[in-house]
């Protein structure tokens, strides 16, 4: 474990420069380059804010008092969900996609998920900035509870990385996993209150929401961004324990499977 941390530290420059490279390569031949990084989330948030708020807000009683209530609710949920699903999806294929380099160069393999994490964090940060900016313009400010957002982001990330690394390793050996997980994620999206409020669910289904480790997280995002309240952090204990457990399992499998991974790539 120690040596893994040490060698990762030795490759810190590689990790940082790879994250930079990843963004640069996306925009390198476009005229305005990096500005696209900001335009994309801005447009996305504007669509939610301006179009969906007039279409759907009436159906959500809890948010009826705010014009943009539903739009904020939706973007807050998406902020959490997209970070989670981005990291899981990319970790899922990360070892397979980089098979060639893994077979031929010697470097700490753990760099790969770290690069993905960095990229996802930058994207998520930009989306957050876009959300804050758009809603500030529309008259919905942020409350001090937003200071808790980094904690929530870290927890989302930990959960996603835990799932992602475990599944990414399994996917190297059992390729069907790579086919199944995107489907599971789609189902997961509709099983998480992102586009709807939990109260619209029938009672039986609503009780089952507590099985979804992402549910308390998304709710906390809602508390912070929509209602400006401090979320009940103790509700996140289960999710945190799961994230920790998955990360530990991921690291353990990583050490065990590392030797065999290159054999089958």
């Amino acid at each position, binding site marked *: 474990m120690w040596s893994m941390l040490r060698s990762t530290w*030795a*490759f*810190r*420059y*590689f990790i940082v*420069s*790879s994250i930079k*490279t990843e963004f*640069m*390569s996306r925009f*390198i*031949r476009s005229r305005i380059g990096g500005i696209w990084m900001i335009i994309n989330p801005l447009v996305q948030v504007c669509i939610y804010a301006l179009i969906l708020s007039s279409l759907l807000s009436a159906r959500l009683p809890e948010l009826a008092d705010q014009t943009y209530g539903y739009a904020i609710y939706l973007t807050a949920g998406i902020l959490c969900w997209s970070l989670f699903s981005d990291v899981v999806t990319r970790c899922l294929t990360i070892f397979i996609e980089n098979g*060639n*380099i*893994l*077979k*031929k*160069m*010697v*470097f700490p393999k753990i760099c790969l998920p770290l690069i993905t994490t960095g990229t996802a964090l930058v994207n998520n940060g930009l989306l957050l900035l876009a959300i804050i900016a758009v809603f500030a313009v529309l008259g919905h400010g942020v409350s001090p509870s937003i200071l808790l957002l980094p904690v929530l982001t870290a927890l989302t990330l930990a959960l996603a990385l835990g799932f992602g690394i475990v599944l990414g390793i*399994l996917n190297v*050996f*059992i390729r069907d996993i790579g086919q199944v997980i995107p489907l599971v994620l789609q189902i997961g999206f509709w099983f998480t209150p992102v586009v709807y409020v939990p109260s619209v669910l029938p009672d039986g289904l609503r009780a089952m929401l507590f099985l979804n480790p992402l549910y308390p997280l998304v709710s906390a995002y809602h508390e912070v961004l929509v209602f400006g309240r401090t979320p009940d952090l103790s509700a996140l204990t289960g999710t945190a324990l799961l994230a920790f457990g998955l990360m530990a399992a991921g690291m*353990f*499998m990583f050490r*065990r*499977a*590392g*030797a*065999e991974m*290159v*054999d089958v790539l």
Partner: protein
Amino acid sequence: MTATVLHVDGLGKAFRTYRSEWSRVLSWFGGKPDILKEQWVLRNIGFRVAPGEAIGLVGQNGAGKSTLLKLITGTLRPTAGRVDVHGRIAAILELGMGMNPEFTGRQNVYNVAGLMGFTRDRIDTLMPEIKDFAEIGDYFDQPLRIYSSGMQMRVAFSVATAVKPDILIVDEALSVGDAYFQHKSFDRIREFREHGTTLLIVSHDRSAIQTLCDRAILLERGAQIKDGTPEEVMDLYNALLAERQEQTVEVRRHDTGRTQTVSGTLEAVVQDIGLFNGRDEPVEFVNVGDPVTLRIRVRIDRSLPRLVLGYMIKDRLGQTMFGTNTFHTEQILEDLEAGSVVTYTAAFHANLGPGSYSIATALVSSDTHLINNYEWRDLALMFTVSNHDKPYFIGTAWVPPSIRIER
């Protein structure tokens, strides 16, 4: 005891197939692995390498050379035994790994060097030297996609060897790029060696192994069958190759990657072909200018009115060095009976430059193979010419001069 930079001990590598992949997964958590099949590609490899030594790694395709290199560099983990490396390894196996065509040469240097584990500061210090060594001028700050492949390889080699490694692994694929840069790269390798870098070279080329290496190791079907001087290892290697050639089929892939084709009606076929030295021993290596005899035994499978044998000596690139046939030498055979055997012997001096040559044979009824082509056989025989006792020369022909100098 002398110092060792590389110690390979009882090394083995097996690729395992599990009854189910889930059983493999369970085995990480302490379950009993349910192994269906274990395929050992390397077994019981062991050797020590001292600093500054140059080792040649020889073996046929599939002997396990690449696997051994991957185990030494560390991308593969051994199934048995261990590899101890003292120092930094640089491998020139896959030049251009991790390069992105959209980025400039300079940006790619940052990326590749980063992948090699260098920090930003270190790369900044190395950058001027990398740029100078690559010698691609202003292209260095232009995107890689407009580079020629030679230019890409210049940049890749410059990064890979920017810092003197303790062990340098060179694949024979290094022979890319133009002659000038090849020399430059070999000079750098030689310079490293003088400063104590250990060299590990994979090659099929006898002369490369013999001139560069102090020692050679021969792998055959995953086993280390010889560790000795380059001379004796190469001899054994060639013997193994010859043994394999006994059991060949009509269309096969040569070691050189070329495919041998045999065409024709097969009314007459080359049954046996061999090159013999002055003492009538079969040879595969011939010294420049030595007398040799090409012996071709032809089996007639159907009665033929006329038979002409032609042969061509071709160089590595397939260029004909010399070719003639028995029509031109006015030695046409007539009225041949089915079942008879004809032996042709052609004696000549191997007045060829050092290199690898092949002989193609043709059995026809007249001057060309366009009418009555009985059998045309490419790469019927391969041999290598090397220069043991003549003054150094280049080229594919041995045209010995007597030089007189007046002053």
